[in-house]
Structure formats: C-alpha cells, structure tokens
C-alpha cells in the first residue's frame, strides 16, 4: 500500500511528521505493509497535512489529517467518502483541475529525491534535448518562449542569457537567487522541497546555453528543509551523471553547489547576493556593470530566480511555442500565484497570466479565513502595493499591474481583512526598509528612518506630514540604488492613497 504524506515545510508545520509516525505505528499494529512517501505539497495548504493513498491506481486524498486519523486512513473507507475530510481523487479537485501546472507539474506528485520518479514524470527531457543543441540555439528557444524573470522585475530571461552567452571569459557562472525573502511568497521553497531536480536541470541547461560550467544556489538560511533537500538532490544528480564533468554523456560539463545566506533580506537583490556569495557584506553594487558581464568574482554571470530556472526544463522539453501559447500580452506562460495571509484557501495556484485579482481573491482563495470582508491585498511581497477592492478588476500581468500602480513581483498575494490598520502597515514597510537597508545609498538608509518618523507624525495628527511623506517617497523611488529603497514607496503610498481614512482616523483620535 502506497501512502503519500508531504515532507513540505508547511505540511510539517501543521503536523505532517506526527501523522507519518501515527500511520507507521498503525500499519505495524495491523500488520499492513505500507510504503510512506514524503512528497512535496500539492499546494492546498488549508488541507495540509494532506494524506494520499493509492486505490486502483488513483490517489485518494484525505485532509487535514491528524494522528488520530491514521487507523481510519489505512482502513480505506474513509478515503472513499466516509468522512467530511475525504477529498476523493486529488487530481479531480476543483483547485487542481483549474490550474495549468507547468513549472509545478511534479510538485506534490513525485518523491522529491527519486531521480527515477523525476524521469518517469517527464524530468530530464529538457536537458537531454538541450545537450544536443548549441548554446545559441538554447538561448533562442528561451527568448522565443517569452519567459521573464520571476523574481520581480520581469526582465526577459533570453536577453540576459544572450548577454552572458556573447561575453568572452575564461569562466562564467549560473547563480540561482533562492533568497526571495518576501512575505507571502513561498513558491521557491515549495519547488526546492518538492521537485529539486527541476531547478538543477534548469541550471544545467542555463550552463549549456551560455557556456558556464559552474553554478551556485544562494539559498536563504530561513529554509532549513529546502537546504537539506537541495544539498541531497545535488549529490544524487552528480552521482547519476546528470551534472558533473559529463552531463548525461554529452561531454559537456556543469557542476553546482548550494550556498546558504545569513539572514539579510537585501541579499535577494542580485548584486547584493553576488557580494554575499563572494564573502563580502551584502551591499548593493551600482549597475553598470551588469552582472551578466561582471558578476560573481567579476565574471559573466546569469543570475535568475528559482522559478525562472525551474521553468526552463519544461520549455526545453515542450518547446518555446507551447510555453508562449499561455498568458496575456507580453506576460507569457504561467504564473505561480502564492495565496497567503488571512485567507480561506491559501496555497499555491499555477495558472496562465490573465486572471483578474478579484477572481483570485474571492473565487479561488475564497475570501478571508476570518470570514470578514477583504480590505486589501498586498501583491508582490513587502515592496508591493496594497490593492483595494476597487482594483480587483486588474488582470494579472506585468504591464496591467504597472498601469494600476502595482507590481506583481514574485506573484505572492497577502490578504488582509477589514480590521487591518493601513497606517500601521505603511509604517511597518518603512520600518522593515530601515532595518534591512544595506546602507549604501542615502535615500534608502536615511529615507526609511525619516519615513517611520513622518508616519508617526501623521498618526499624531500632523496634517502637513502626509505631503512630506509623499515627497520623501518620490525621493526614495528615484534615488535608491535597488528595489528595497526604490519600491518601499509602493506599499506606503498605496496605503496612503487608497485608505485615507486610516490616516485621517488617527488624526481624529489625536484630536
């Protein structure tokens, strides 16, 4: 009997390990032979721990499971509908059926550390194909797919690769930015824990494309499980010849290492990350020179986000046209929505670009967990704008969000109910920027500190301070070296603009 219980951090945080222990005990007591596979999460976090059991070749779900459910799960009836927690075949659930899973096709399905499971579900097809092509051909394929950086800026991946490909240097690098520390974003973590070989395969393809033989994953220290899984996956891939001196027998080389960050948010910015990787303070570098020309150790370097690199294998396996066939306008392919915060159905939902914000929040996510009205949704992490209900018609695409004064960033959505004080959230954004500023540029280093003070003045009823705050935000936006100082005005100004009552109410209270 095969049973799946996610080893994903979110499932573990909700008691998956205890469920595994209880199932193992119950199986022993009953003399049932059970193989427990620790898969990734299917992305329905509100149902975690979600246990799946194979019946007649189909995976039946049950969740959220508790250790007390172990006996009943093994007896089988409960899976076929004897309980309110019975979900039926997981692939038939509305949440799953409505998705287009390209990057996350295998996450939650396979055993993350089984290379044979990976291959059986389409893994390595992209790398095998890429190994027969020239670097220029691979770059062209990625360019034609329309893939844009999934880290926030949305820069076309193919153009970045082309620059590194064309650069002449004795050594080039692929660096994966796995330091996305934005609140409300957990796709990277889920991907690395649930399907690590996809990222490794994507990095190897990037290496072949640009002529880089070495790669690094710079991974947040806040994700100990992802670090463990990725390290093990790299060893397994190397032992199997997927990476190393002779990629899949192609006589082309690529090897990689996992490096761990040290708790500095700003290291998610690519040039700060490169400094950190080199062993320096994670201070932002001025651009130019671009990392594509002078990156890690001064060499041409591709710096891509986890999701961008993990999407490369499916593009190479199925072709640029297939991928580009999904999406909206210049936002091609799929987006991995991460639905979080005060939300009824939180989790990961991969779909083609183009759904409206309201459809995602009200329909897919089911509104708030508290049952109260949604007040605001912060899209794109701590540096993203707070979108009020009036903007729920905005379609999910880079240009569409930009036009509405927002950004999709990493596509994380954090939902807040009507009890949220938006002045407090604006203050938090400034405070966060002050704490995490690398200190290199003045608008960010000093501006954020002054921003906190100015918001406190508004809270105390100083009417002129709102204008000052607006002015300060303009300066930070225009004068900061990187997105930390440059984008903090998004949450601050969106809160001030869309929720003026929260700023005025403070004033009335003061009076």
């Amino acid at each position, binding site marked *: 009997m095969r049973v799946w219980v996610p080893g994903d951090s979110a499932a*573990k945080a909700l008691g998956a390990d205890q469920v595994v222990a209880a199932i193992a005990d119950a199986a022993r007591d009953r003399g049932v032979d059970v193989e427990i596979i620790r898969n990734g999460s299917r992305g329905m976090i509100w149902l975690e721990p979600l246990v799946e059991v194979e019946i007649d070749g189909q995976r039946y779900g049950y969740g959220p499971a508790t250790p007390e459910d172990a006996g009943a799960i093994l007896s089988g009836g409960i899976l076929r509908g004897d309980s309110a927690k019975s979900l039926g075949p997981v692939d038939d659930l509305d949440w799953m059926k409505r998705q287009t899973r390209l990057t996350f096709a295998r996450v939650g399905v396979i055993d993350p550390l089984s290379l044979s499971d990976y291959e059986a579900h389409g893994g390595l097809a992209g790398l095998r194909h890429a190994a027969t092509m020239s670097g220029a051909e691979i770059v062209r394929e990625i360019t034609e797919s329309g893939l844009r950086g999934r880290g926030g800026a949305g820069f076309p991946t193919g153009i970045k690769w082309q620059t590194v490909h064309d650069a002449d240097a004795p050594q080039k690098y692929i660096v994966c930015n796995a330091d996305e520390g934005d609140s409300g974003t957990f796709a990277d973590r889920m991907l690395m824990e649930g399907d690590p070989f996809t990222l490794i395969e994507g990095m190897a393809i990037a290496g072949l494309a640009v002529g880089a033989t070495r790669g690094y994953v710079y991974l947040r220290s806040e994700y100990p499980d992802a670090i463990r899984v990725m390290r093990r996956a790299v060893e397994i891939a190397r032992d199997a010849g997927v990476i190393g001196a002779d990629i899949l027998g192609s006589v082309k080389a690529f090897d990689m290492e996992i490096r761990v960050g040290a*708790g500095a948010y700003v290291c998610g910015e690519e040039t700060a990350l490169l400094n950190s990787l080199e062993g320096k303070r994670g201070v932002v570098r001025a651009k130019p020179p671009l990392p594509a020309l002078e990156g890690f150790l001064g060499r041409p370097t591709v710096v891509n986000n986890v999701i961008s690199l993990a999407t490369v294998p499916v593009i190479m396996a199925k072709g640029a046209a297939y991928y580009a066939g999904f999406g909206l306008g210049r936002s091609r392919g799929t987006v991995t929505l991460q639905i979080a915060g005060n939300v009824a159905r939180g989790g990961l939902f991969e779909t083609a670009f183009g759904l409206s914000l309201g459809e995602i929040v009200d329909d897919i996510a089911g509104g708030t967990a508290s049952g109260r009205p949604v007040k605001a949704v912060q899209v794109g992490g701590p540096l993203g704008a707070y979108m009020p209900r009036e903007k729920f018609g905005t379609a999910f695409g880079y240009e569409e969000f930009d036009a509405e004064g927002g950004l999709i960033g990493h596509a994380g959505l954090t939902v807040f109910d009507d009890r949220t004080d938006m002045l407090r959230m604006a203050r938090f954004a400034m405070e966060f920027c002050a704490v995490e500023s690398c200190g290199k540029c003045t608008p960010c280093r000093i501006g954020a500190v002054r921003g906190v003070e100015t918001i406190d003045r508004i809270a105390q009823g100083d009417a002129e301070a709102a204008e000052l705050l607006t002015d300060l935000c303009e300066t930070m936006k225009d004068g900061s070296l990187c997105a930390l100082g440059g984008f903090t005005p998004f949450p601050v100004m969106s809160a001030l603009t869309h929720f003026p009552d929260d700023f005025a109410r403070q004033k009335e209270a003061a009076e």
Partner: protein
Amino acid sequence: MSPARSAAPIEELRQIIDEHRSLEGPLLPILHAIQNAYGHIPAEARPLIADALNITEAELHGVISFYHDFRDKPAGRHVLKICRAEACQAVGGEELAAETLRKLGLDWHGTTENGALTVEPVYCLGLCACGPAAMVDDRVLGRVDAAQMDALLAEAGA
C-alpha cells in the same frame, strides 16, 4: 543548532577554516561552519579567519556584523524565531509575538535567565498560508496560537 560548547580550540578552528578555504567565496561557509560547531563566532576565530583569507579583521567584522544570523556569543539552548512579516501579521502574528515576549519578560534577541531560550524575529519562513508561523531550532510550526506557544515554551524549559 544549540551550541556544542563555547570555548573553541584553535586547532579545531583552523581545521574548519582549512576545509572551506579552497571554495570560491569561502567566508560565509566558514562562518556558518564555525557557528554550527560552537553556536557563535568565537573571538579567537577572527584572527585565524582574517589570516587565512588575507583580509583585515576590520573587514571581517564588517561582514560578521552585517548578517543577522551570526552571533558574538552563544544563544540560549533553543532559539525561537517568530515571523513578523505581513502574511503572519494578517492573522495575528504581531499579537502572538508581543504576548510571547511579555510572558517571557524579554525583548527581541533576548535570552531567558536560565539560558533555555532565545527569541528572535524572522521575516518570513515561507509558511505564509498557515501563519502565524514560528520555528524552534530547525522545527517549523504553523497556525501557532497562544496555547501552542505556551506548550512550546514549557517544552523548551523557558
């Protein structure tokens, strides 16, 4: 992650440094390895690292002090990290953190008098759909409520 011991023999430190010095960008791996072994970066490690990597101790200090993870002295036997980021705030994370600190009579980064527990803020554990989130040593916890937090503190001996 709890510290093995606080005094670090020079030879052991040298060995850790030597194991990593051939890496490209060896400093962070060295600092992590030393902190894993001793629970902090002991003062006696500094001249050895600076010497091995041919950097000044001032430069080294600049790196160590930049990162939230590295410590000058050992933390408590257990480290509790409570997420302060937006997604957890949306479901009562701030209140949970404030109440926990109040119960322990600590501020952020403080350690209980008996040395059992250090409390630190963390900005996102990637558990944004099941907040408020916390982490005790390497164990993650989601939807933490007051009762669960009490049990946790008792278990940690705080």
